[in-house]
């Protein structure tokens, strides 16, 4: 008996095999071996939801899953729900609703929301709240995020998929952006350190 194991599973639609130590978590393997660093490590005890991935169509926290229990399962990470030039509807809606500040929790929210929409394409506001109750966000507040996901579901149900995938403005799904894009980037200049030193 050895402490190494071989695990075969599906990762973002591809069959993969990995030989690794048995005491590693799915989260470690995703980040360190596959370099899929969109999945974040927050609390490591399943409270914050930053490491949420979809396993067999259900949202789970990858920090509570040993790599050995992934044998034969279908794992989808944030990298598997979109590509850099085409965001998925949930991601677009989160951008449009400005439901991001630092962004650390966002991949987890997107995965929880995607799992919900896979199962229930027309969720109520309450159902979205329950589905996101395992994800913590410490900057934005939850209203924008829930609004965004509700909106994404409504849009997906209303519009012809060909319409919202026109790719005119990739990030908004062809709908007008709710804010004016800035022509010039605003530059913030930090003042010298003297003032701060005096204060402290």
């Amino acid at each position, binding site marked *: *008996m*050895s*402490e190494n*194991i071989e695990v075969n599973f599906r990762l973002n639609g591809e069959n993969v095999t990995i030989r690794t*130590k*048995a*005491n*590693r*978590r799915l989260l470690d393997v995703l980040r360190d071996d596959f370099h899929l660093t969109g999945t974040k490590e927050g609390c*490591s*005890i*399943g*409270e914050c*939801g930053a490491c*949420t991935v979809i396993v067999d169509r*259900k*949202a*789970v*926290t990858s*920090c*509570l*899953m*040993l790599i*050995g*229990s992934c*044998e034969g399962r279908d794992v989808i990470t944030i990298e598997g729900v979109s590509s850099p030039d085409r965001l998925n509807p949930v991601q677009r809606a989160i951008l449009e609703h400005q439901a991001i500040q630092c962004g650390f929790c966002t991949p987890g929210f997107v995965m*929880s929301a995607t799992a919900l929409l896979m199962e229930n394409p027309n969720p109520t506001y309450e159902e979205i709240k*329950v*589905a996101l*109750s*395992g*994800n913590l966000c410490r900057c934005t507040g939850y209203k924008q995020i829930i609004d965004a996901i509700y909106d994404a579901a409504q849009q997906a149900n209303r519009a012809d998929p060909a319409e919202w995938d026109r790719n005119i403005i990739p990030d908004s799904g062809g709908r007008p952006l709710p804010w004016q894009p800035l022509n010039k980037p605003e530059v913030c200049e930090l003042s010298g350190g003297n003032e701060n030193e005096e204060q402290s």
Partner: protein
Amino acid sequence: MRNFTFIKAQDLEEVSQLLFAHHEHSCILAGGTDLLVQLHEKSKRWAELDVVIDLHPFQAELSQIEDIGSALRIGTLCTHTEIERSFLVNRYLPLLSKACSVVGSPQIRNMGTVGGAVCNASPASDPLPPLIAAGAELAIHGCGYRRKALLSDFYDDMGMPKLEPGEFVTAFEVRKLQPSERSSFVKLGRRKALAISRLTVAVILDFQKDGTIREAAVVPGCVGRRVKRYRQAELMLCGQRPSEALIASAAAQVTEQMLAENGRRWSSAYKEPALTALVERALNSASYGAEDRL
């Protein structure tokens, strides 16, 4: 995290043999939501862990919810989500489905199993009070034999599960509630979602045709080392018609027994009024279908 060997057994008999052979140095992996946290926090409980035995190869066999006549047979690997959404559990054991719907977060409910919740033996486990109120039986697999045990006798005085070397739980058999029975489950956590329970109460009331209570089961969770039925309060309810005064005095009786058995602790100032209110809510909910008084 500690190094260990990860074993997938061929059949249930091999699981028992491995558990027997490695006894103190082995553990079973079901959902992993408790085990991984304990391993991450380097819990002393697993200081000598060498072998982790995965139950997932038997997922198909151990995650069934079946109707077996007067009872439901719930596989040990059923996740909380599966129980919460099961048509059979919703229909025949609504309080269990309610309890499973308030465990942790959606992610935890998708992984965590009912077998794990019972065998980890936390008094704060949510499915435990409903299972004890309904008099659940456990199906236990040992080396070359199978046996059954009552869940209410499953824990020793320290609150640890009574399992011999090589034994593990494969299923729960829980009687179906009758049409004359009403049940409820209420939980108090620090916040609405994802909180470990501070207090829970499961109640089953069996009504006679004239509106009096024939039989009652009142099981508070998170009080004391063992989760059990509070018989004195139950006897107060039997033969009576539910009323505001009866519910208040039964709730007071539960709190009195809790204090008598566990003594006054630092948390008593909080738990005393909270438990009384929670038992009242649970009894109101089972009697009138609403937590607040009509």
